[in-house]
C-alpha cells in the first residue's frame, strides 16, 4: 500500500514517520471533533487500513495514525484517508 500522507507542515508536530508494526493493520476509529466556532461536537466512525504513517503532537506525545482504504466512513466524506488519534483506534485484526 502506498502512503497517502502529505508532508507535515503543522508546527505543532513533534515527530512523524512510518511505524512498520502498524502498516497494513485493519482498524476502526471512533472519531469526531469539536465543531469550531460553536460549543457543539460531533462523532464520526471510520474503518479501514492503517498506512503506518504516524504523526506525534506535543510533548506527550499525542500520536495519530493515517487510515486509508476506508470501508466505513460518514456519508458524504470526500477524502480517501483520515488521521485518527491512537487512543480512539481499535485494531480489528487482533
Amino acid at each position, binding site marked *: 500500500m502506498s502512503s497517502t500522507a502529505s508532508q507535515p507542515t503543522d508546527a505543532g508536530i513533534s515527530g512523524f514517520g512510518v511505524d512498520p508494526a502498524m502498516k497494513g493493520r485493519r482498524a476502526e476509529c471512533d472519531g*469526531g*471533533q469539536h*465543531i469550531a*466556532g460553536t460549543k457543539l461536537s460531533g*462523532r464520526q466512525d471510520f474503518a479501514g487500513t492503517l498506512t503506518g504513517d504516524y504523526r506525534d503532537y506535543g510533548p506527550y*506525545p499525542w500520536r495519530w495514525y493515517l487510515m486509508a482504504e476506508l470501508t466505513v466512513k460518514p456519508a*458524504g466524506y470526500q477524502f480517501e484517508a483520515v488521521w*485518527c488519534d491512537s487512543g480512539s483506534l481499535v485494531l480489528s485484526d487482533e
Partner: protein
Amino acid sequence: MSGPLHTQLCDKLGIEYPVVAFTHCKDVAVAVINAGGFAVLGEAMHTPDQIAADIKWIRDRIGGKPFGIDLVLPASVPEEKTVEELLAMIPRTHWDFEQKIKDKYEVPAPKEVPNLHQWGGLDHKRALAQLDVVFDERVPVFASGLGSPQFLLDRAHQLGMQVWGLVGKPRQAKKQVDAGTDVIIAQGYDAAGHTGNIGTFSIVPQVVDIARGSKTAVIAAGGVTTGRHLAAALALGAAGVWTGSLWLASRESDVNLQLKERLIECETDDTMYSNCISGYTMRTTRCPWHDEWNSDAAPEVLKPPLQMMLSANYIQGSLDYQRKDLMTEAAGQGIHYVTEMKPARQIISDLVDEAFDVFDRFAAD
C-alpha cells in the same frame, strides 16, 4: 459521611453529593460546587487566555473546592481546507433552500456575520494550547468530552490531576479503563449533543461491568434530570451522574431568557437526533430548521463542516433577536423535567431529596 448518596465519586473529589454539572456557564459551575455538587466547565470554544481567566474566576469563588474543565479533543481529522474552499463546496441548491427557510420564517440576519474563518476545523495546535493552560493551572479534573485522553494521563497524574473521559461505546470505556482514566462518563443516547446510539440504561451497567475491579469510577450521563434518575444510576452501579440540560434554565444560567422559556416548554419529543444543524448527528431542541430539513423538499444534508456553515446565519439570527420560535439548543431527553427557572442550589437540593426518598421507600418495603 455515609448513606446511599455517598459514593466513590464523593471520596475521589471530596464532595457531598455525587452530582456533576456540565455547563458552559461559570455562574452555574460555582453555584453547584458551593451547593455540595461538582461542576465541569465546557471550554472547548475558548482561547487559552479565556480559559485561564475562567479558571481564576471560578477559583476566586469556591474556596479551594475542586472543579473541572472540559475540552473536546479531536479524535479524527481530515485534510484541512480554507474557508473559501469550503464555502465553494456548498451547492447553490442548498443556499437557495437556506434562503427559503429564512424568508418563510422571517429569520433576521445576524447582528454580526458568524466568523467563518474559525470554521475550517480545529487543529492539534489549538487543542494543545488549551491543554497547556489546564496543566499550567493544575485544574483538579480534566474531562475530555469526545476524544480519548489516554495520551495525557501520565502528565496529568504527575501533576496530581484527575482525568475523565466521556464515552458512547463500551469498547471506548474498555480502552480508557485499561489506560487508567480516573472517571468514565458513560453517555447514553438520551443525552444532549453528540451522543452515541446506545441508551443510558443499556450503556451504564455495561461500562460499570468493564470498570469492575479497577480504580476507575463510572458516572451516568444522558437524560438525568431528577432524583429518581440519580437513584436509578446508582442502582445501575454508577458512582454518580453527569447532568447538562438540567442547568440550562437555572436562575444562574447565562442562556438568554427566551431560550430558557423555550427549554421549559420542551417535551422529550421536542428533542431531535438529527444531522441537519451541523452534518454530525446530535440531539438538539426542535425548531423550524429541523422541520424544513425533514420535509420532502429538503436537499440532502451536507457533510461537516459545510452544513454548520449553512445553518450559522439562521442560528445566530435567532439568538441575536431572541426569536423563541426559531431557537434551538443542545438538550437531552430529560428536558421534560426542566419545568421552572430554579436556583442551582435548589436544583441540587430537589435532586438529592428525591433520591433519598427513593432509597427510603425501598428501605421501608
